[in-house]
């Protein structure tokens, strides 16, 4: 913004030839504030500016090489901003600024080094908040670790909101699933998988009606259980019986005796 103004003032074409010399303009910068909310806003704005700069360069690039260069040189790393935000909000636990800062981190930089730390502090500091339910659902895409699992377990027990109890329970189940998939020891893997199934069945029974996106936790948890019990490598695939694109009914098992690729697809 500042450089644009400076350019305009410096440009001789911008001023009529007979005009008096332009008056010196005092440049007023935003007063430096030590209010945490202002500091947070500054960090978020600086990320947004860097991101916008990247997007303009990316759009302006005429070929893949240009786009790759823009990505490599200009795409800001949200992890760096997340680290700054985390350092700031750590000083103000339980405040509105902390809530806002944690949300930025888990939303934009959940997979950065600050992601899990922010999630854990958020659960601890805002246990009673109803909005925490949708926040913890982000953990279903990872990372998977025992600290997060433990925090989700605590939240499922101590939140006063039924929706948060349900969402935290579902997220806990997904942590067990992720941990089981990553485990190398067979006994540990099986143990975690059993916990995963137990939690998902409990979600169906106790929290099934809680909404989850456009669906419910029951549908999501049932889907997880179905995959675990029917769609693992080595299992005989469950049959599908439905109409084809011309309305003719057929079954997957009609193709028994052949190697079959099942391809879930769509034209989009």
């Amino acid at each position, binding site marked *: 913004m500042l450089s644009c103004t400076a350019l305009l003032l410096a440009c001789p074409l911008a001023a009529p030839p007979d005009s008096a010399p332009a008056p010196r303009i005092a440049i007023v910068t935003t007063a430096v504030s030590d209010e945490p909310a202002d500091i947070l806003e500054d960090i978020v704005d600086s990320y947004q500016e860097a991101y916008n700069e990247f997007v303009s360069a990316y759009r302006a690039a005429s070929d893949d090489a240009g786009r790759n260069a823009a990505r490599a040189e200009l795409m800001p790393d949200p992890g760096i901003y997340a680290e700054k935000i985390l350092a700031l909000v750590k000083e103000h636990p339980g405040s509105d600024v902390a809530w806002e800062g944690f949300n930025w981190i888990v939303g934009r930089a959940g997979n950065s080094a600050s992601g899990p730390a922010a999630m854990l502090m958020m659960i601890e500091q805002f246990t009673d908040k109803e909005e925490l339910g949708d926040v913890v659902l982000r953990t279903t895409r990872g990372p998977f670790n025992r600290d997060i699992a433990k925090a989700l377990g605590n939240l499922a027990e101590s939140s006063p909101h039924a929706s948060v109890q349900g969402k935290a329970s579902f997220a806990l189940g997904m942590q067990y699933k992720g941990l089981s998939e990553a485990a190398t020891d067979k006994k540990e893997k099986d143990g975690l998988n059993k916990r995963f199934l137990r939690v998902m069945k409990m979600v169906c029974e106790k929290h099934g009606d809680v909404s989850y996106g456009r669906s419910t936790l029951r549908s999501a948890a049932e889907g997880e259980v179905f995959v675990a019990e029917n769609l693992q490598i080595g299992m005989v695939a469950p049959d599908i019986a439905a109409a084809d694109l011309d309305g003719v009914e057929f079954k997957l098992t009609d193709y028994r005796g052949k190697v079959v690729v099942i391809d*879930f*697809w769509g034209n989009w």
Partner: protein
Amino acid sequence: MFPHERSLVKRLSDQPFALIGVNSDRDLEALRPVLVEEQITWRSFWNGPEGTSGPISTRWNVHGWPTIYVLDHEGKIRFKNVRGEAMDKAVDSLLEEMNG
């Protein structure tokens, strides 16, 4: 995606192999010209008017498209989410196992 599947289906046309789609387009009429243009000759189940929220993909807990399962001739799931060359290799290995 389509070109790869097309070439796989063509290459294995004389083998005990089938590619079965589960299509999640909401509007079948809009899809018909695409089937012709893209030479999509393989058979697909239709996931119904609810599109990606239809009954088959819901039951199979599919949240990403495309999702791939590879079954052997006994109907057992042997590979999941193999794409491109990996899908070809998976299918070839199962055909070899079956014929050999």
